[in-house]
């Protein structure tokens, strides 16, 4: 069961070698993972939208889409058709080329990043030896394309949304990148497969002290990187109407939507790979473990969306620069110390240092942490 997809892959390659000329067979062999990702990406995106709507509905005690298809299962298809048939309005004074280019440019990195994720034991599209760095580089480029979308649609609201989103993405990119460094220091290589192999059985990194803190920071920054509540400032409906994608409709809006949800999947997949031991797990086949962990993280992100109000721009920045960044630096040092020392002593020292830093950071941010209030009553009879 574990190597199911790998056997399918081999079978296709054997069939291709038997039938096609050899160079064609090699091309087919290369193309299988690409086709798999090209199907897997959009399909996950479609069904993630459905899962999100169903989950949020249940949190709010209502049913969620159940009219189209048996339990609303065909709803994503209906949305897709609607998006395709909707008229595509381009504002008259907008920058036509950039307006068209932005959604395409945003989807490319979202798809490219799938190549680096280890879906299961030797089920990875391209085993780059700079896997994680490639992922971070790709997610870095989305900032630029979001801003082109905002600037090209030539409207005040999207401009404000664009500026906010760039500021947020940059200030969360640094803790995002640096919180992975401890894992790289301990594993010694960028490649995602190596990282997963370094967490055999149940020795996931999340159970080490620096791993827990790293997981917390990495997950928070991942939520911010993907612009989801409580950091969904750029497309804050209540203030900026729809942030940078106000002026998009029809298929272009669908592309933004697709990119957002694919990012949600890939980012939680990376968090699962780096901190929760990718496809490592006791009994179940490897790819089941991988999907299980990724989907729990996605459900947590959706749970956030159902519960939290939005952070204001300056609080959001303050949280990144004045809390997360310092914690990441200390985390790197603690990981190094943990790596050097042996036996249980390292866990204790690492945990001690981390707790001290968290307390100290809380003291520094005292002014911002709100206090509970008690209220008195008049006319108390």
């Amino acid at each position, binding site marked *: 069961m574990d190597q199911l997809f790998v056997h399918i892959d081999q079978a296709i390659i054997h069939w291709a070698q038997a039938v096609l000329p050899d160079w064609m067979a090699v091309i087919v062999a290369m193309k299988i993972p690409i086709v798999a990702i090209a199907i897997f990406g959009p399909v996950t995106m479609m069904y993630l939208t459905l899962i999100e709507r169903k989950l949020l509905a249940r949190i709010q005690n209502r049913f969620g889409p159940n009219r189209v298809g048996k339990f609303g299962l065909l709803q994503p298809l209906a949305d897709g058709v609607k998006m395709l048939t909707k008229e595509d309005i381009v504002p008259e004074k907008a920058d036509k080329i950039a307006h068209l280019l932005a959604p395409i440019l945003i989807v490319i990195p979202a798809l490219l990043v799938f190549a680096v994720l280890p879906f299961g034991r030797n089920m990875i599209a391209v085993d780059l030896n700079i896997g994680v760095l490639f992922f971070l580089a790709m997610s870095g480029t989305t900032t630029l394309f979001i801003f082109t979308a905002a600037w090209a649609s030539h409207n005040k609201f999207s401009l404000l949304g664009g500026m906010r989103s760039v500021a947020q993405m940059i200030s969360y990119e640094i803790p995002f990148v640096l919180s992975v460094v401890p894992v790289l220091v301990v594993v010694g290589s960028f490649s995602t497969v190596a990282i997963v192999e370094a967490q055999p059985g149940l020795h996931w990194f999340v159970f080490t002290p620096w791993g827990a803190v790293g997981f917390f920071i990495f997950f928070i920054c991942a939520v911010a990187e993907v612009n989801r509540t409580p950091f969904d400032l750029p497309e804050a409906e209540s203030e900026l109407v729809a942030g940078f994608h106000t002026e998009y409709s029809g298929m272009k809006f669908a592309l933004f939507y697709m990119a957002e949800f694919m990012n949600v999947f890939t980012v939680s997949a990376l968090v699962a790979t780096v901190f929760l031991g990718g496809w490592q797990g006791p009994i179940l086949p490897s790819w089941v473990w991988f999907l299980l962990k990724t989907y729990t993280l996605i459900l947590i992100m959706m749970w956030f969306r159902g519960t939290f109000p939005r*952070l204001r721009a300056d609080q959001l920045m303050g949280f990144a620069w004045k809390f997360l960044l310092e914690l990441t630096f200390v985390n790197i040092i603690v990981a190094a110390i943990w790596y050097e020392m042996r036996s249980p002593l390292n866990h204790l020292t690492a945990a001690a240092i981390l707790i001290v830093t968290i307390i100290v950071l809380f003291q520094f941010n005292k002014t911002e942490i*709100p206090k*509970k209030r008690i209220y008195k009553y*008049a006319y108390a009879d």
Partner: protein
Amino acid sequence: MMEHTLISKPDFDTQTLEVSLGPQHPSTHGVFRMNVVLDGETIVKLKPVMGYLHRNHEKLAENMSYLGSMPYTDRLDYICSMTNNFAYALAVEKLAGIEVPERAQYIRIIMAELTRLVNHTLLIGFLLNDLGAFFTPVLYAFREREKILDLFEEVAGSRMMCNYFRFGGVKADLTPDFLPRVKELIQNYPRFLDEFEALLSENEILMARTQKVGVLPKELAVSASITGPMLRASGVPYDIRKVDHYSLYDRFKFRVPIGEHGDVYDRYYIRVLEMRESIKILDQAVKEIPSGDVISKVGAGFAKAPRNFKPKAGEAYGRIEAPKGELGFFVVSDGTNKPYRYHVRAPSFINLTILEDMCLGHKVPDAIIILGSIDIVLGEVDR
């Protein structure tokens, strides 16, 4: 130095940005526009623009019999139609000197307090919606509001446009299973409130977003004749139920919560505490409600034939503690069956006048939640 002839004239010279939020905007509670001048993200100038929902309510009332404009008062503050009827009925009864039997007074108080629960629950839901919580609090609020609206429909015939009050009492008596259902509601509501508070009150993001935002100082509140929860959140203990003792409010024991900072968080939390007090009033009212007829003989006659209800010439101003503030009706009669002058003192309109003073220096998202915390309904603002 010699001024160069510049090729391109910059229009970004003062770095300020003129943005108009509304009238077609997802979070302005109806058709209300704010012309905001922004420097970066902080608000430099804010001009509210109203009047999109003006329906000429007061001129209409002058060409209609007194009872004819009672259904129109439901449309003033379309969330609490019962309290609008209550205030109008009080004003006309003061004008014409009509007595109201005890049972009718109790029914009126029960309806008023139920409307207060509906209004405050809805407001907290929409305030959280402006803060960005994606519809979860609103839908919890709607789930509870449904129970109360079912009670209204059972008694008055319509969920939101009740048209239930008549001069001298109420249109019809309570249905047999109205009181048991109110008792059951009184049991469950505190449990819902505790769950609502657990979700919201200690939520750090909410506290961070709303504390010290949109502070309304006590003096400004009093001088701008602000009334209702906004005034009490700024620390002024003024509640018309306790000041005027209208209807039978002095028979019930209840307290009035007071805030000190007067910011958005206080206004939110005062409304939660007020809901708990309303439940106490409902509890006592449901226990002590006497039997008897629900409308005085005189009132029933006029309800049957409103055209020959000719109060003697004179004027009267009846006011109540509506969920949004002091809702008053000023009625002037010249002896005919049509009022000579009819004016509504709308609380949200007057509370809206100081929106700019509270928003200066804040960011755009803060202006949205300050507007949300004032609790305006455009039907009442524009009349």
